[in-house]
């Protein structure tokens, strides 16, 4: 057993209009990783590859010590997987699904399932056909959570949920992390969710991983500097700054490798630093995608 719950090396997959290029990813045991990226960036494909549902053209995929896709059967005993495009059987009740899972997984925790039913506002005797989208999502997650799997792989678990439901799901996810032997990988469009609960952040755009690192380190590297540029002064190009927008005498510089001496460097060039601001993941997300596309386009 190694220290990683998930390990991808040099993974490639080609489609007609899309390529996943050289994906390398490591999820340490006991941590939770948020996968973010624009639509069609390759998040779902990456997740399907690591679940063994799509076979990679090249590269190694190792999940919980099992080679994928070859050993997916043994791996999937310990993985709880839910994706946005996953549906339960319309004609059956939630209770039927619970019994079905129970008949397969010895790890099924009935008490926890009952608790989740109550917490999620679901009823076992309801047919899936008659419940709302949000309840379906919660039902699918209940079936995964109550197994208490070592690894949770969730593709867009909070998409389409109302704020209360989203909050409930996030709470359950962080509660899972109270057990240091368990790990979570989840993708989301909601940068707020990712910022709140993940230990690691991985950024995917156009089939490539742009960044993958510790969340605190990552957020710390990004800063927005509000500058006043007196007439006649030109802002220097400083290392670590990926973009400057200037209108009149006010300028905003975005740094993706912020160092504490950066404000001084601007002051030395004759500009005045009004503020050094932290950025939310959402702001970083937009800046990062725009920046990486400029680079690719250039």
């Amino acid at each position, binding site marked *: 057993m190694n220290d990683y719950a998930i390990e991808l090396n040099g993974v490639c997959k080609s489609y007609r209009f899309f390529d996943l290029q050289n994906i390398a990813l490591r999820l340490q045991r*006991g*941590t*939770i990783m948020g996968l973010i990226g624009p639509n069609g960036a390759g998040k779902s494909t990456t997740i399907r590859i690591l679940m063994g549902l799509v076979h990679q053209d090249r590269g190694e995929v190792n999940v919980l010590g099992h080679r994928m896709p070859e050993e997916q059967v043994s791996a999937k005993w310990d993985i709880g997987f839910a994706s946005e495009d996953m549906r339960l059987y319309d004609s059956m009740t939630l209770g039927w699904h619970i019994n079905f899972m129970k008949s397969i997984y010895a790890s099924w925790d009935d008490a*926890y399932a009952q*608790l989740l039913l109550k917490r999620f506002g679901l009823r076992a005797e309801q047919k899936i056909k008659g419940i709302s989208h949000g309840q379906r999502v919660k039902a699918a997650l209940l079936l995964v959570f109550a197994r208490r799997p070592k690894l949770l792989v969730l593709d867009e678990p909070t998409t389409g949920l109302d704020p209360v439901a989203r*909050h409930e799901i*996030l*709470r359950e996810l*962080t*509660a899972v*992390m*109270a*057990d*240091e032997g368990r790990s979570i990988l989840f993708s989301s469009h909601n940068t*707020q969710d990712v*910022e*709140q*609960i*993940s*230990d*690691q952040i991985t950024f995917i755009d156009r089939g490539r991983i742009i960044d993958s690192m*510790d*969340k*605190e380190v990552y*957020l*710390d590297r990004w800063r927005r500097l509000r500058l006043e540029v007196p007439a006649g002064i030109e802002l220097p190009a400083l290392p670590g700054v990926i973009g400057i927008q200037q209108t009149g005498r006010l300028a905003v510089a975005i740094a993706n490798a912020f160092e504490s001496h950066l404000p001084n460097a601007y002051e030395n060039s004759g500009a*005045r630093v009004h503020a050094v*601001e*932290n950025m*939310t993941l959402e702001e970083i997300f937009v800046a990062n995608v725009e920046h990486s596309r400029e680079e690719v386009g250039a």
Partner: protein
Amino acid sequence: MTSSHTVYTVHTQMFVISQTDSRPMYMQIMEQIKQRIVVGDWAAGQAIPSIRQLAADIGVSVITVKRAYLELEREGVIVTRQGKGCFVASDSAVGERIREQELAQHLEQAVRSAAMMGLSPKNLEKRIRAVYERVTDAEKETV
């Protein structure tokens, strides 16, 4: 696992992480831990939740709480004892010290703003005295 859950919820359910707060989450957590210590909810030397436990209770990532704890440890507000867990620093003046640090920070901020405006130390002193009198007068009135 769920039973150990309930132990700390009494103390931690009031943690609020706000998106309108422009400070990073770890700073918000630090501040709220300090508040608990200042008001005496968490007494000097008292055991506090483990990093994982607090993360699960607040609903944020482990790494964020870990960072908050590290910074608090560096400031001498909490201590980690190997194998025993985390505790509020045992000196009885820890609350006092936190207030002291806060004051120092505010003063520093004030001085920086003053320097940016080109205010002399004398003038700054005068301004501070004026604010002091206004605030204490206002407090007398409310009492």
